[in-house]
């Protein structure tokens, strides 16, 4: 899909929404697969978001400052016998972007849809 400059894409809206839903349940940080599951459950989809689509979108949102990420302590993963996770959390800017996107989508016809944010690395200036 060709991006309208600075407008949140559906996958980006889904990611931010899933992240905030997880936060409301007390899960402040989430990893990629957890997010894919959350989106799948929300949308009632039989198949989870594809690897490439999910992680490319996560990268865009992190660069735009709508998500923050950190790698968990390798010792935690090693203790549980699994690879270490990259953990994401929705920033204040991300929550605002989602709220503005939702309100714009609910606005009467003719209003702009989505929030205009600079998403570096996706052809946006």
């Amino acid at each position: 899909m060709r991006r309208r400059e600075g407008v949140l894409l559906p996958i980006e809206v889904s990611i931010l929404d899933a992240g905030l839903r997880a936060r409301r349940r007390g899960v402040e940080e989430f990893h990629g697969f957890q997010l894919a599951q959350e989106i799948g459950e929300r949308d009632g989809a039989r198949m989870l978001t594809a690897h490439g689509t999910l992680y490319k979108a996560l990268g865009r949102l992190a660069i735009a400052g709508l998500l923050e990420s950190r790698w968990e302590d390798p010792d935690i993963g090693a203790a549980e016998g699994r690879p270490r996770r990259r953990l994401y959390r929705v920033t204040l800017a991300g929550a605002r972007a989602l709220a503005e996107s939702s309100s714009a989508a609910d606005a009467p016809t003719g209003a702009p849809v989505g929030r205009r944010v600079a998403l570096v690395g996706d052809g946006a200036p």
Partner: protein
Amino acid sequence: MTTIEQFVGAWVRLYTAGLDPVDRDERRAEIASDLWEQARALEDASANRQAAAVAIGARWLLGIPDDLLWRTERRRKSRGQGNDPERRRTMVGFGNARVLALPVIVAVAAVVVALVGVVVDNIQYAEQRESIVSNSVLASLWVVLIVGGIAGLVLGFVLMRRQPGVGAVLVVGGAATASISTYWLIVPLVLAVVVSWYGVRRARRMASEAPTA
């Protein structure tokens, strides 16, 4: 680790090869974690091996266009071509890779269907044919027609952006060549042509709607 996990891991190593070490290692680690988590979740859900392989394989297959776009972006970034006008112009072109994905997937599916068809035909009619040698030659010819035809189809669609005439001839010629090899291919190839036509129209419409600033 299951075969499909190993396969997807190999794909990740392939498309991250030659990238900036930080980008490369982070992407590999992130997908490795995702694969592990999904495999365990499927185990917990008591999914059988085939269902698990399909679930993981589908996520891999549908993400290929974004994997390749991500690689392209990372390479351009590491070359220091961040925001120049030439980069933006090129990225509009790469946006069409998403549109390309569906016909390519359909074409790949068509090859699989055709190969299955060849095998089934061989088994079904082997006794009626004079020798297994002539049967093999016929099968090889079919495969050449199928692969060649589909290669023409995909190449035609790629060319359609800049040379619509040549591209259209290749699409139609490729589809016809592959279709005459076996009736199994007619439906998927017609579908591929229709999807290609729709994709080009959509790509052009999106390009015309894209902001110029």
